[in-house]
């Protein structure tokens, strides 16, 4: 058992470190400017000069993938942050106070979950224009319900616990109970939620960019690169493969890491 735990942590940690490292590198330095055209021939196959070849404008795909990963990670982090913070707030209040407001908010969360994500993104994009910030907001809103549900259940469970009941009897304020007693107990459920949410956020961002709603050109994004590359699938398969594999490896790294952490906790 011990060996296996290490394996997943090692693989996942290694892969995540590699991908995040590359993404970080990409935000500060890339071999070529990711938007510079004619950095090489159009559709140059992978070579030493262009590790992942070039695209239809002769832009260096490796540089674009690096920067695209950075963008994906940043967006995912923001999305999860919004979802987690707002979700925790909503979930805490609902779970702690209960009542009709809780009922309505829970239904609202259900409604948002049932609302097609593309439509919400399009609404926000039509209102505020296309762009990175808009997509962060749209996805952030979509990520609130899952966190809210998680936190609500946990809070409601703790509310019944003896130590909370006795704290209430002692006249401790609601705010104090929430922040001092309940919040610290939420980390256990929030931790895995954040990792899973992160993966979902990377995937959602890629989907939105794939539909042209995310990061706007000329800035690279893995999803829009994948969408663009479809036309050149036969001529430049490395273009589609690079973008697609980058998304897949990013997600794989995190899920392996999560698996490893989960197994270690269980062991």
């Amino acid at each position: 058992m011990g060996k296996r735990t290490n394996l997943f942590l090692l693989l996942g940690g290694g892969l995540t470190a590699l991908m995040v490292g590359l993404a970080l590198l990409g935000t500060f330095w890339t071999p070529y400017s990711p938007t510079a055209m004619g950095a090489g021939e159009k559709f140059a196959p992978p070579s030493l000069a262009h590790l992942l070849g070039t695209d239809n404008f002769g832009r260096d795909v490796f540089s674009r993938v690096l920067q695209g990963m950075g963008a994906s990670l940043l967006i995912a982090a923001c999305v999860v942050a919004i979802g987690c913070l707002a979700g925790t707030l909503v979930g805490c209040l609902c779970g702690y106070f209960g009542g009709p407001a809780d009922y309505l908010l829970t239904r609202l969360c259900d409604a948002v979950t049932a609302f097609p994500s593309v439509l919400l993104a399009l609404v926000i994009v039509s209102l505020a224009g296309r762009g990175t910030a808009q997509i962060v907001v749209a996805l952030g809103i979509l990520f609130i319900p899952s966190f809210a549900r998680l936190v609500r259940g946990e809070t409601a469970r703790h509310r019944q616990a003896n130590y909370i009941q006795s704290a209430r009897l002692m006249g401790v304020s609601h705010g104090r109970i929430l922040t001092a007693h309940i919040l610290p107990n939420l980390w256990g459920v929030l931790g895995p939620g954040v990792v899973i949410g992160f993966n979902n956020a990377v995937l959602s961002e890629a989907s939105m960019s794939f539909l042209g709603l995310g990061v706007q050109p000329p800035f690279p994004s893995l999803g829009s690169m994948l969408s663009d590359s479809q036309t050149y699938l036969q001529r430049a398969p490395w273009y589609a493969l690079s973008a697609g594999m980058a998304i897949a490896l990013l997600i794989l790294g995190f899920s392996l890491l999560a698996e490893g952490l989960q197994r270690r906790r269980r062991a």
Partner: protein
Amino acid sequence: MKSLLKKCAALIITLFLVSALAFLAFSLIPADPATSLLGSEATPEAKAALRAELGLDRPLLVRYWEWLTGFLRGDLGNSYLYRMGVGEMLAGKLTVTALLTAESFLFTLLLALPLGILAGSVKNPWLDAACTVLDQAAMSVPPFFLGILACYVLGYGLRLFVPGAYVSPEEDLWGCLGYLVFPALSIAIPRAAMAVKLLRSSILTELGRDYVRTARSRGASERDILLRQVLRNAILPVITFLAVSLAEIMTMSILIEQVFSIPGVGRLLLSSISNRDYPVVLAIVTLLSAWIVAVNFLADLLTRLADPRVRLG
């Protein structure tokens, strides 16, 4: 029974909220349907006249009320763009998307159950680790990327199918299902991988339970124990997951319809949004959410049926 009624009420409230949200969303979006209908060369008067004809000049609440009462009567309204009944328009598209969803779901089941059981019965720790890594990898590939890969490798490379040569189910049901195989697989593989992971860990948990020891002490074979005893328990969380998958698959099909150019509800939704064809969008959004909500309800119900402890409790 009472909890069932409560759930039904929650279901209806949720649907109501979704339609209200959708309606509100449209009132917020700038650029009205008249512009997209009449194009660049129309006069402002013509646009105003069209707006009046479509009833867009009336207050939001009135329009919502009319839409809602119509919807409850089964009247989905008329498409601004195509000037035909939304119901009539949707019928064909729903069939396609339903077929795609059904086929994806079938593949998910066919892949997830045997592989999950296999993964749950692997004893060698190294083999098990390899399976898990493989499974995680399958989970991590976005369906639309899988779709693109399928087009490239299976479509162009191996010539197993002709990307884009879609046949409608009315023309040729089997041909249509045949075309949908690869889109369905693109959706099903990552989903199935998730189900495999869940089933595997569920089986492992169940294998550690006392009743398994009891069964062993009666001389039951490992295969018998797995299939007859453990699986019935291990499948419970998977049932919920699979039911929820039905909703996710529907959502995923929006993207996959793009990749494989399948004229389903997803594509209609996207184009109707950009055309500001609100009656169509509203109908689709409401029906989609109804589906999602209903599927969650179904998940609940199935779990109740499959688990005697909840069934009566």
